[in-house]
């Protein structure tokens, strides 16, 4: 009792073997069914996410949000999907048709791949591989591939520029993300997500708050969500890489983004918030699933909170922030954590996590001190005139011209 998923799987395995299938065939059929069940499960969540996203945005912007179809507008996403499905399928001129059609798949399937390794409950996990953390990084490769395919095949300069920006951002932010992923790996001494969750008697966010923060920031950048959504800066690039997509093809990118945001919530909660662990989860695995989704949705809500609170940052700020701020910090944290972990083996977990927390606070304090010292150096630069793109042969702008322009307007 308390574990319906395993119960049904066991029962169905018995049924299959009763039909005379041998062990290999049963394994193949069971794995196929597992794939379909997980995909169906997360896609249904995805439909619901459209509603959550719209409703939460509306609340952040002091609106009500969808409220006409069904109670609290719950049927709204279904109407959205019907609309997306019956929209005209437009092919722009000069596109690379095969790649153009292939790209939306790459917008969605890597996100589904992520869900294969996340432990939803003690017993429910798609595939409990021993390199799960590295696997999560590998799925990111396919996402950036899909974006660059969409941008290139659309035969649209805005789409291509958007794809370039997005992919540059994704490869850059992958560096601090991977390094901060290593810190739970060091603490758990395993890359297996189920093992990492299992060993979190104390949540790792207690021992590694800075790593958790860096992981969250770089994950938001990987998602391409505000404040890192320069790839689709409406005033410059209209919609970025998916500008030429209509109907369900656009819907695939959109669904992929939403599901990816929840997947980031799931990864974060598995790595730092104890995953499915909670009251009663050990004896009733189904309660573990409940705790897991509570935590995942909380992180998803934080991501939305950030998205609708902060303004978009410029591309140079985005790259500087990554290479000159997040990457060095994450490297320092990694080294400190590795050394402390070796020194603290054998001590009781409370001492271990206390020392880790103190080390993190110390690093954070040093960062703040350094930032405050450097802000004085950076301040005059803001007022310097920025280089302006001008046609060839145009006379140089005399000094003080910018002030006259502002006075005219």
């Amino acid at each position, binding site marked *: 009792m308390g574990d319906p998923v395993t119960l049904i799987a066991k029962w169905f395995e018995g049924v299959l073997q009763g039909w005379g299938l041998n062990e*290999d*065939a049963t*394994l*193949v059929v069971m794995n196929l069914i597992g794939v379909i069940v997980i995909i169906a499960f997360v896609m249904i969540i995805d439909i619901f996410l459209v509603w959550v996203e719209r409703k939460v945005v509306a609340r952040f912007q002091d609106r009500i949000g969808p409220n006409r179809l069904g109670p609290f507008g719950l049927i709204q996403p279904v109407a959205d999907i019907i609309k997306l499905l019956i929209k005209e399928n437009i092919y722009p001129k000069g596109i*690379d048709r095969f*790649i153009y059609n292939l790209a939306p798949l790459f917008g969605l399937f890597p996100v589904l791949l992520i869900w294969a390794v996340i432990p939803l409950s003690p017993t429910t996990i798609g595939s409990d*591989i*021993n*390199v799960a953390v*590295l*696997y999560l*990084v*590998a799925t*990111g*490769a*396919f996402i*950036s*591939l899909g974006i*660059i*395919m969409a941008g*290139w095949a659309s035969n649209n300069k805005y789409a*291509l520029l958007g794809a*370039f920006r997005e*992919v540059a951002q994704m*490869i850059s932010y*992958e560096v601090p993300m991977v390094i901060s992923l290593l810190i739970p790996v060091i603490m758990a001494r395993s*890359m297996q997500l189920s093992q990492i969750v299992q060993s979190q008697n104390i949540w790792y966010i207690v021992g590694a708050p800075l790593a958790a923060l860096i992981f969250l920031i770089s994950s938001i950048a990987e998602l391409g969500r505000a404040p890192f959504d320069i790839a689709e800066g409406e005033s410059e690039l209209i919609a970025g890489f998916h500008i030429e997509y209509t109907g369900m093809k656009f819907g695939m990118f959109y669904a992929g983004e939403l599901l990816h945001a929840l997947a980031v919530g799931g990864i974060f909660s598995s790595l730092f918030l104890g995953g499915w662990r909670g009251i009663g989860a050990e004896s009733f695995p189904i309660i573990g699933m409940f705790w897991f989704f509570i935590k995942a949705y909380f992180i998803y809500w934080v991501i939305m909170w950030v998205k609708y609170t902060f303004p978009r940052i410029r591309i140079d700020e985005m790259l500087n922030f990554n290479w000159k701020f997040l990457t060095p910090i994450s490297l320092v944290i990694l080294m400190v954590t590795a050394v402390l972990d070796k020194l603290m083996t054998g001590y009781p977990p409370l001492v271990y996590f206390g020392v880790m927390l103190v080390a993190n606070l110390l690093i954070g304090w040093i960062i703040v001190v350094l930032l405050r010292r450097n802000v004085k150096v950076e301040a005059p630069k803001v007022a310097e005139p920025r280089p302006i793109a001008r046609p060839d042969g145009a006379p140089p702008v005399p000094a003080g011209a910018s002030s006259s322009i502002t006075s005219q307007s």
Partner: protein
Amino acid sequence: MTPLQIIFIIVAVITLFAAIKVVSSRNLVHAALWLILVLFGIAVFFVILSAGFFAAAQVVIYIGAIAILMIFTIMLTRRVARDSGAQHNSNWWAAAVLSLLLFTGLSWILSRWQGFQSTAQPMLESADPLRQLGEGLVAPGGYLIPFEVASILLVAALIGAITVAWERK
């Protein structure tokens, strides 16, 4: 045939077909995308050989970094993607003979090897290949010195790249 063998044959056919398309397709971006399919096929082979770490590393490094870098370079180079010249020159027969010789030679050597006919040993349940790999790389009795030399080489290359790109004011 076991399901694993069926998967192997399907993936092998796809990988070989994609490999041929890499050298034969006229559009360079298409060639790069076919190359990604080849690299992914090799990652699947690693999975079949139950080397999950290598499969993930293959995808991260080759598809996530190198292939994306290649696509970037192709896209940033003007008109290189629309080359309409001849796809081979007059020496094609020499290359064909050479590659055929190489293929037969390799096949002959492999067919004489004893491990060619024997079935693979099942992996020990208790052994964690990832842990063994890590210990092999950094244990003093393992490959510590080559590993450290490779790290120093990579750091030197990194610093060299920064020095080349450094804009002195």
